[in-house]
Each structure stands twice: as structure tokens, then as C-alpha cells.
């Protein structure tokens, strides 16, 4: 295992540090809160000659992703970063990046979408891009953000995958808070990510990228191939996590469970507030309440089969969503959880908890409110439904 160094870094600094070690060929980026410090920090590395990256200062996120597509199509290793409205402005290019099977790595620092305008965290931005065909990974802390940024390059560029990867972590809570981060040395990271070998390289041989697929063309076949690739990536991601464990000592999985043995109630969550729920679950266990926790790290592709297996003996699921799907029965994470259970032939009640929109804190005693409601559902006094926690002046009834 390689020599690690311990540093005090914010989430954004940790990711900029990972990008420095990856030394991508091209980084086109446009600043937006709370992503800005990544690009500021990385621009310093470029200015100081620490990396050989071409930093393209574009005039919008639409241009940032367009440039990223151009450079990745040309055969250059390409990374970029954004948040919120910036990701929204990239929307049409997100589909082009995945459709053209370009292994771009995008750091998305999660932030709410307007209106009303809000710069704080929720997962609405990422959920808007949910069906764009990108691999989506969510992180709990700066360490995970650093680690998965490095893994993302290897996942995206794997010849069985060739898909863009979106690394997500919570705005401010992770992006601007200083954390203890173990970083690897530069050589170890560069050897781990290796060199980029695109299937076609415009720099060596002329090719056509993005040709018109006429009526009676092959759009349908290409979409199936793309869908197969993201499904295939499930095992590739785990392979990369396994290889990363060998150099870092940190072994990641799509889903990470705690206390789920014999659990009656399993809480499912992703992102920084996993820590608060973990704290409470440990406390509930010590009080004799059979609660458990599953943290979702890989959101696309969704590890549904694994999830259904993990919760096989559970009586009730409580799924925390930091985004809503207005008018839908469930928010995005709960929808996937429900679909996974249904596919596996399992039926159990699901409480979908909407929390933390626009950076609203989820207090520990509010998790108790969720537990109390859950216990009432278990005893049959309440029906499972979508609940909004932490509303001002309103407790969950």
C-alpha cells in the first residue's frame, strides 16, 4: 500500500488536489457557487506549472460541457466541475456526452435549483440529470470525494464502459468544510489512472463525431448499446473500487450497510447527512430498537439487486431524499428503492422522507420524529407515505 499523507482540506480542495494528481489534458470550466474553489485551486496548479492541463476559461456551463465534449472526442482526458444552475445549463450536452460515449469526469457540488434562488445543498441538480446516461456517484465526506474522483477516471475510461461520470458531494457541508483527508502520492495516483486510450483518436486519424442518424438509422441500437454499457459498469465500478483499496486501504462499495442484520427498520440515504442518521441508528440500536442503515454511493447505475438482497428480512424502509419529484408518488431515491424491491418480488412499506432542500438542516431530534412515525407505521397506527421533515412550525403527524 502506498504512503499516505494526511492533510486538512475542504471537499473542494481535496477534489482539486485529486485533479492535480490526475493531471488531465483539458479542463474547461465556469465558476459557480459552491463549486468555484475547485477551479480556483486548480487554476493555481495550472498557473504554477504543477500540471500540464489546458485550462479553458469558457463563458458559460453550456460552453464548458461543449468544450469538454470536443476535447474528449479529440482524444484528450477531460474533467470539469459545476453546481446547480450550471449543471442545468449543461443539460443538453450531458446527453450528448453520454450518447457519444465520452469518458468525461464532472464534479458536481450539489446545490439547490432556483426558484427561489438558493446557494445551499440539495440533490435537485443531480436528480435533474438522473436520466442523462451518466454514471452518478454520491459522497459522504471530503475523503470519499477525493477517492471517487480518482476512481471516476478509471471507471469512465474502461473500454467496457466509455461513459461520463458525475461525482457528487454536498455543497458547503462538504465542499467548504475542512476535513481530515488522506491523500496518496502523485506517482501512485498517476500509475493508478494510467494513460487514456480512446477507441478513436482524432489527433491521430480523422473521424466523424456526432453524425446525423437519419430516419431508419441506428439511434435505437446505439441507445441499447449505451444502456448495456451503464449496466455493465456496475461490476467495473466495483472492480475499480477493489483496485483502489489495494493502494489506499479504503474499500468502497455501491451500497454500504450498517446494523442491517435483523433490522426491522432500515434507513436509506446518500450524501453528507448519512453521518447524522448513522449516529441515530447506533443510538437506536443501543436502546434495543432494531434499526439499520444503508448508504447509497452508486446511484446510476442503481444497484437494485444488491439492495433488494440486503433488505430481504426487513419490515420497513425509510428512504431519505434530498430532492423531490413533484407530483410523483416517491422522490428519486425512494422510486429506485421501490422499483428494486418490486423487481425482486418483495413488497414492504416505504416511508419517503423529504429533507434538507435548499440546505435545511436535518437535526438529530428530527430523525427521532422520523423514527417515531416509522414505529407507528410498524404498529399499524399510521400508513406509510411521503413526509416532509424539518418544516418550520410543523412536526410530522
Amino acid at each position, binding site marked *: 500500500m502506498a504512503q499516505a499523507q494526511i492533510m486538512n482540506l475542504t471537499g473542494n480542495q481535496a477534489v482539486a488536489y485529486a485533479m492535480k494528481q490526475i493531471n488531465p489534458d483539458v479542463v474547461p470550466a465556469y465558476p459557480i457557487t459552491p463549486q468555484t474553489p475547485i477551479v480556483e485551486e486548480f487554476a493555481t496548479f495550472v498557473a504554477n506549472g504543477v500540471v500540464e492541463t489546458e485550462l479553458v476559461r469558457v463563458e458559460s456551463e453550456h460552453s464548458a460541457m461543449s468544450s469538454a465534449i470536443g476535447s474528449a472526442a479529440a482524444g484528450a482526458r477531460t474533467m470539469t466541475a459545476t453546481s446547480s444552475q450550471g449543471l442545468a445549463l449543461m443539460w443538453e450536452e450531458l446527453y450528448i456526452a453520454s450518447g457519444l460515449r465520452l469518458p468525461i469526469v464532472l464534479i458536481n457540488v450539489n446545490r439547490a435549483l432556483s426558484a427561489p434562488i438558493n446557494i445551499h445543498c440539495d440533490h435537485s441538480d443531480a436528480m435533474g440529470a438522473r436520466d442523462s446516461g451518466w454514471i452518478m456517484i454520491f459522497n459522504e465526506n471530503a475523503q470519499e470525494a477525493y477517492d471517487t474522483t480518482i476512481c471516476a477516471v478509471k471507471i469512465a475510461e474502461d473500454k467496457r464502459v466509455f461513459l461520463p461520470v458525475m461525482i457528487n458531494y454536498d455543497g458547503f457541508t462538504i465542499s467548504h468544510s475542512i476535513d481530515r483527508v488522506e491523500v496518496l502520492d502523485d506517482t501512485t495516483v498517476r500509475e493508478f489512472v494510467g494513460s487514456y486510450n480512446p477507441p478513436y483518436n482524432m489527433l491521430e*486519424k480523422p473521424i466523424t463525431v456526432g453524425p446525423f442518424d437519419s430516419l431508419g438509422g441506428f439511434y435505437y441500437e446505439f441507445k441499447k448499446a449505451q444502456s448495456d454499457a451503464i449496466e455493465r459498469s456496475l461490476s467495473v465500478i466495483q472492480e475499480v473500487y477493489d483496485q483502489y483499496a489495494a493502494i489506499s486501504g479504503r474499500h468502497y462499495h455501491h451500497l454500504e450497510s450498517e446494523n442491517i442484520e435483523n433490522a426491522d427498520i432500515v434507513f436509506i440515504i446518500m450524501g453528507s447527512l448519512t453521518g447524522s442518521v448513522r449516529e441515530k441508528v447506533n443510538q437506536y440500536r443501543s436502546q434495543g430498537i432494531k434499526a439499520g442503515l444503508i448508504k447509497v454511493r452508486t446511484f446510476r447505475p442503481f444497484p437494485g439487486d444488491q439492495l433488494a438482497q440486503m433488505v430481504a428480512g426487513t419490515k420497513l424502509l425509510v428512504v431519505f431524499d434530498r430532492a423531490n419529484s413533484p407530483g410523483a408518488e416517491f422522490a428519486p431515491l425512494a422510486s429506485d428503492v421501490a422499483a428494486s424491491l418490486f423487481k425482486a418480488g418483495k413488497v414492504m412499506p416505504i416511508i419517503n422522507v423529504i429533507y434538507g432542500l435548499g440546505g435545511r438542516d436535518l437535526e438529530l431530534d428530527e430523525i427521532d420524529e422520523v423514527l417515531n412515525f416509522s414505529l407507528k407505521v410498524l404498529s399499524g397506527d399510521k400508513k406509510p407515505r411521503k413526509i416532509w421533515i424539518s418544516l418550520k412550525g410543523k412536526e410530522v403527524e
Partner: protein
Amino acid sequence: MKKFEIDKLETYGVDEHPVGAHIPEAGNSELYETGSWRTFRPVIDFEKCIQCLYCFIYCPDSSIRLEEGKVVGIDYKHCKGCGICSSECPRDAIEMKEEIRED
């Protein structure tokens, strides 16, 4: 991935197409017939033509056929009937005639 053969794409399975719908070879757009979009066809009156080659210079689709430096006709497989040649011809030697299906 199969060796890319543009004429055989119809027979390719999902995994046999080039990744990401790229066309991994250059210079094969002439194999793709684009002339079928045309509603008006340029027809050259060689009695009027003075071989100035304006049509050849202006044609955006390289569809003016030359032989030994002389205009000999139109490549109707790729001409989209834009009419620029007809408009630019200093001797009005190119007439745009409506395409009428014979069947």
C-alpha cells in the same frame, strides 16, 4: 467492434457498431446519398455555358462534375438543389427544374 463497413451497417448487432456512433473513417460521406432531398434540379444548357467555372466554385456540395477542367454535368447523387449555381451563373445557363416523380 467490427471492422467498419458503411454498406453493411444494416446487418450490425447492437455491440457491433462503433462506440458512440462515431464514423471511424474519413472521406466516406460521398457514399451517402443526399441528392434525394432535392425539389429543384439544376440543368446546364451547354449552348450558353462559357466554362467560367463559377458554378464549380460556388457549389457548397462539390456537385459540379468536371473532366479535364471543364464542366460536364451535375452529380445528382449529392446535389441538394440549393440553386446557388443557377443564381451565380453569369450567362443564365443553369435552369432549376422542378423534380417530378415519373411513377
